[in-house]
């Protein structure tokens, strides 16, 4: 293992985060705070409890997940896309490092960043609504698992994209709708039964459900299923990344 190379990539990516602090940390925190104001305080005050917790409290796990998901994808996809775009990828490809080390460096940094962000948003939420976390260890497990999985997914998008448009396309057209329809703002049980069935095909439902369970012990699907689905998606992403590096897809010709 070329640990120094992993460290170099990881620190390089983290340095990029601190350099773009406003964009990478401040702006997601501001937009999440707005969600709390609008949904939690303004609209939420007119909604009675959802499954035994107040609406403002209910949406916290979903909102954290929403940010962690989208930020993981955008961090990781940009992290690997930009060297491709700027041409600096030549150095990564010519260095004595394995593909696994490249992935650990980039995905590790992207996941770290979104975990930090998730925790900051959680703390911000605590300013608006009373928070109670039943299973902190599981909460962290879901957080880390999701951050890693979606950073890997973002890495795949970053490699696949050959223009800024494609880089934005999947997050905008696929991930955002799935997240909004994934039960961030409501319980799946509130949907008509036909829609409920359709919803179960949405992988984000499992993430948010499991994550919310770690807070309030309320879940749309069983926790085991949530964990299993997340792990399955993680493995799928790993398989794709392995294939990318074996074939040199969009990296080497």
């Amino acid at each position: 293992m070329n640990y120094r190379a992993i460290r170099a990539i990881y620190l390089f990516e983290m340095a990029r985060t601190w350099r773009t602090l406003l964009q990478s940390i401040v702006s997601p925190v501001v937009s999440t705070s707005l969600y709390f104001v609008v949904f939690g305080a303004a609209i939420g005050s007119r909604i009675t409890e959802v499954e035994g917790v107040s609406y403002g409290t209910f949406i916290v796990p979903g909102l954290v997940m929403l940010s962690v998901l989208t930020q993981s994808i955008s961090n990781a996809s940009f992290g690997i896309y930009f060297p491709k775009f700027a041409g600096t990828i030549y150095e990564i490809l010519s260095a004595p490092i394995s593909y696994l080390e490249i992935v650990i460096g980039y995905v590790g940094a992207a996941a770290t960043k979104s975990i930090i962000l998730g925790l900051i948003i959680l703390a911000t939420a605590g300013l608006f609504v009373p928070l109670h976390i039943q299973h902190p260890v599981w909460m962290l497990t879901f957080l880390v698992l999701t951050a890693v999985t979606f950073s890997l997914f973002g890495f795949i998008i970053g490699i696949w994209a050959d223009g800024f448009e494609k880089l934005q396309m999947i997050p905008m057209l696929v991930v955002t709708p799935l997240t909004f329809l994934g039960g961030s703002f409501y319980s799946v049980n509130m949907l008509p039964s036909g829609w409920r069935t359709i919803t179960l095909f949405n992988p984000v439902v499992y993430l948010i459900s499991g994550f919310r369970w770690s807070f309030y012990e309320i879940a749309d699907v069983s926790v085991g299923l949530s964990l299993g689905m997340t792990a399955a998606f993680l493995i799928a992403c790993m398989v794709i990344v392995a294939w990318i590096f074996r074939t040199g897809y969009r990296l080497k010709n």
Partner: protein
Amino acid sequence: MSPIISVSNLSKTYGSGFKALKGINLDIAKGEIFALLGPNGAGKTTLISIICGIANPSQGTIKIGGHDIIRDYRAARSMIGLVPQELHTDAFESVWATVSFSRGLFGKPKNPAHIEKVLRDLSLWDKKDNKIITLSGGMKRRVMIAKALSHEPQILFLDEPTAGVDVELRKGMWEVVRTLQASGVTIILTTHYIEEAEEMADRIGVINKGEIILIEDKATLMQKLGKKELTLQLQNKLDAIPPALAAYNLELSDDGHAVTYDYDTKGDRTGITSLLNDLRNAGIRISDLDTRQSSLEDIFVSIVRAP
């Protein structure tokens, strides 16, 4: 001595079916400066990219210091520093950070003293804290060289190092290359500038349409290039070369108004003075004269243009 770089039967066919390299065989000795010349699209950059691990070979093997570039890529790549043709830099990083990053990427422990030396040698020391985006093109080029040297490579690839670089900076770059060679680094450079190859290289290879068509010691090539041609325009038409001038092997032009004389600038005597004397004695008057050197460029153009 076994070569430090050994390319055998290397071919590259792109997905489009374009054959960029066709059965390249090339050995490069430790410590030499090898210049690879060739027109645009000849395959120079493709060859370098494959050796450095940026592109995959379609066929053939490459060994760096005895290490196969695919099976033993870590050992092979650790020995190489690459300065690509295009200026690819991280605009918002500082010079110091980007050069240190390269060293880490190649798995070397931190060594600020070495980085300082590299930056000083390349006259970048006072720019070490500047963001790369604020540097001029020539400085960015030097930053890329600094990155390539950050991990103390034994082989340095310079792909068109002086393209778009002003004369003074080019001379400075040559100086850096010579210092590196003196420290034992093997250098492979591609260039469009023939004079650069003449100035720098120990050996010269010419690549065209994916094939290496000439590899020769520069000294041997230069000897071939030592020949010069003197053309004398005559005031009056000459029907034949007078027998008194037969020893000079003069060539008379078709219209009879010019003669040409080949001589060797490297020889002890060029024979020009005696030729001019003998011409005057023969009563031949000269209206103009012109000398011409067949340069590496001529040889280069003639081999590359050949069908």
